């Protein structure tokens, strides 16, 4: 037997084996270890502050998972490669992002989260108890300063079919239906110091100025069928804002940020944020974007100001070129009245805002200069034929006149014919008096007086164009 004889046998044996041998089921351990190792996670757990262990039927809840890094011991929220599952036979469901939808029946289930080889589980009770009313503003006492936002977890009273009472966080089916009432403590009138807004099943208290307020929650009781109003919840809003300043919205270093660009082209927009400096609990300074809780103003109509959709920045749009506008921002009790303002949409005035003797109020201003729209290029035709900057165009037949039409293209991609604009200058660099003469009465028109090449330089707002025209028989 020699190699040539056994080679086909070897190859056939090899291929049979190759198609049969594969250990895909063995991959799990190594793949899972790489998932955990890549993020350096050595343990996982559910965040104790955010987890709910009792949920109402048909409610939703977003579970999250945090992992501990081995090097820094830091806890980080894990958003990718988390596999969520529920115990068998659960009528509830959970998706790949941890979004849990409780079933229509009371049940006790286990929520499992797997990250790599690490697994964490928690037992959840789905309760059929019915909501009655809100009994606490938040599950914990908290302090808040003016122009800050604070997520709150209202606590509700629930009653099951046997009359047993459950006191727990208000679930997602109720939280979006609550009408929040905010009054001043001293005069009992509707307060403009703060409001509560709810989005994505999360309620947040947003404050605009300091003072004492009373908050109430109105919601439909599933027990009585009536709208029930909670007891008064007293809340103090502190005046612990130490400083306010304006910054570019792109700034991430809120400690050192300023408004770098105060020049704004007409019809263009720049975005600003207001940054408030507070004292943190450890005594250090805490800087945060307080744009959505600030009061904004502008001293004229040379520019227009609007809050962005998420109210995280103020957009300033230039209206009148070669002018300026002073943007003002304030936090606290301003001179201007906001009685008729819907503070839930943000407070923006068409006039300046200012503080009254700086009592419980801080303000900042910035002047924005509005210039004309920048010209990005010039487009030119000669006797209706397109010219290219610096490239020769031949006009045959010895035309009597050359008529230039000049169009300016602006930085906002708009364009405008500027042939007769007084800021456009025509300079004949070559062929003046031998090939062409400028018609003094009509802008852009030149009389042909001979054959040859004419070179005309066009200047407009810092942009130049060389029109090179060869006149032939």
């Amino acid at each position, binding site marked *: 037997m020699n*190699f040539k004889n056994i080679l086909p046998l070897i190859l056939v044996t*090899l291929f049979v084996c190759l198609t049969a041998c594969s250990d895909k089921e063995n991959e799990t351990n*190594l793949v899972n270890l790489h*998932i955990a190792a890549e993020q350096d996670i050595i343990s996982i757990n559910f965040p104790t502050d955010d987890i709910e262990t009792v949920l109402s039927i048909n409610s939703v809840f977003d579970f999250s998972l945090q992992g501990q890094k081995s090097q820094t011991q830091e806890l980080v929220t894990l958003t990718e490669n988390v596999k969520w599952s529920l115990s068998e036979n659960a009528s509830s469901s959970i998706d790949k992002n941890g979004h849990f939808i409780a079933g229509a029946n009371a049940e006790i289930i286990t929520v499992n989260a797997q990250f790599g080889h690490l697994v964490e589980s928690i037992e959840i009770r789905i309760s059929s108890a019915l909501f009655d009313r809100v009994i606490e503003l938040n599950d914990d006492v908290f302090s808040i300063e003016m122009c800050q936002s604070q997520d709150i977890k209202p606590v509700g009273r629930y009653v099951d079919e046997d009359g047993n009472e459950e006191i727990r966080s208000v679930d997602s089916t109720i939280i979006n239906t609550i009408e929040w009432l905010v009054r001043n403590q001293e005069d009992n009138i509707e307060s403009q110091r703060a409001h509560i807004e709810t989005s994505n099943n999360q309620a947040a208290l947003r404050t605009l100025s300091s003072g004492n307020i009373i908050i109430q929650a109105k919601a439909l009781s599933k027990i009585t069928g009536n709208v029930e109003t909670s007891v008064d919840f007293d809340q103090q809003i502190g005046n612990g804002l130490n400083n306010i300043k304006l910054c570019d919205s792109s700034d991430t270093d809120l400690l050192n940020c300023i408004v770098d660009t105060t020049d704004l082209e007409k019809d263009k927009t720049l975005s600003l944020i207001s940054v408030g400096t507070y004292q943190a609990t450890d005594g250090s300074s805490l800087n945060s974007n307080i744009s959505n809780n600030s009061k904004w103003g502008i001293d004229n109509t040379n520019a227009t100001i609007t809050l962005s959709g998420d109210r995280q920045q103020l957009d300033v749009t230039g209206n009148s070129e070669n002018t300026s506008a002073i943007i003002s921002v304030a936090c606290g009790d301003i001179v201007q009245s906001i009685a008729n303002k819907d503070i839930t949409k943000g407070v923006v005035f068409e006039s300046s805002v200012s503080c009254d003797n700086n009592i419980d109020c801080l303000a900042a201003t910035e002047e924005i200069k509005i210039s004309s729209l920048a010209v990005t290029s010039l487009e030119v035709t000669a006797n209706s034929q397109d010219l290219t900057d610096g490239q020769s165009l031949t006009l045959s037949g010895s035309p009597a006149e050359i008529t230039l039409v000049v169009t300016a293209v602006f930085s906002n991609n708009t364009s405008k014919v500027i042939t007769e604009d007084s800021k456009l200058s025509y300079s004949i660099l070559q062929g003046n008096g031998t090939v062409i003469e400028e018609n003094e009465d009509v802008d852009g028109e030149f009389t042909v007086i001979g054959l040859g090449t004419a070179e005309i330089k066009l200047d407009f707002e810092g942009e130049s164009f060389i029109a090179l025209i060869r006149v032939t028989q």
Partner: protein
Amino acid sequence: MKLFLYLGNLLLFTLFSSSVANAGVFFAIAPAIITIDTDNGSTRPLVADIRLAYEIEKHQLELAVMSSINEDKLNQLTVGIPSITSIFYRYSPYYEDRLKIHLILGTSQIDVDSSYPNTVDATDSFEGVSFGIGVEEAFVSIPNLKIKLDWIQLYRGDQLNINALSLGLRYEF
């Protein structure tokens, strides 16, 4: 594993019973980087790669044995390769003077050791199709000695791939 023993014996048997002209026996040694690739990270332990091959004309049959020189770490994950055993068929579609290019097809068994904090150390074993490409060039002064470079995908799975890149020497007896 029985398959490898069988094929290994077959190779040795063939080596010693050959009566064909233009046949040759090769021995090769090289360090090789083994890349264990997953969607979420890679580890690259280093192995010693020892090969014994028999060649006839454009065909070669090669037995490869590899073992860890260095483990690799991905943060707290330590990965080592206690052993890789492979049988390769190498075909030379192109050769000129001292240069040869090989297409490689075969089968491999790869054992991977892993250790991670708070878990039991494990050894996972993978068997499957291997394929790759190799190039070798003989030295002018010692024509029997060649420098060679191989890239081989030792294992191709659903969620992980194991590749080998080796650069070393081959000697023709």
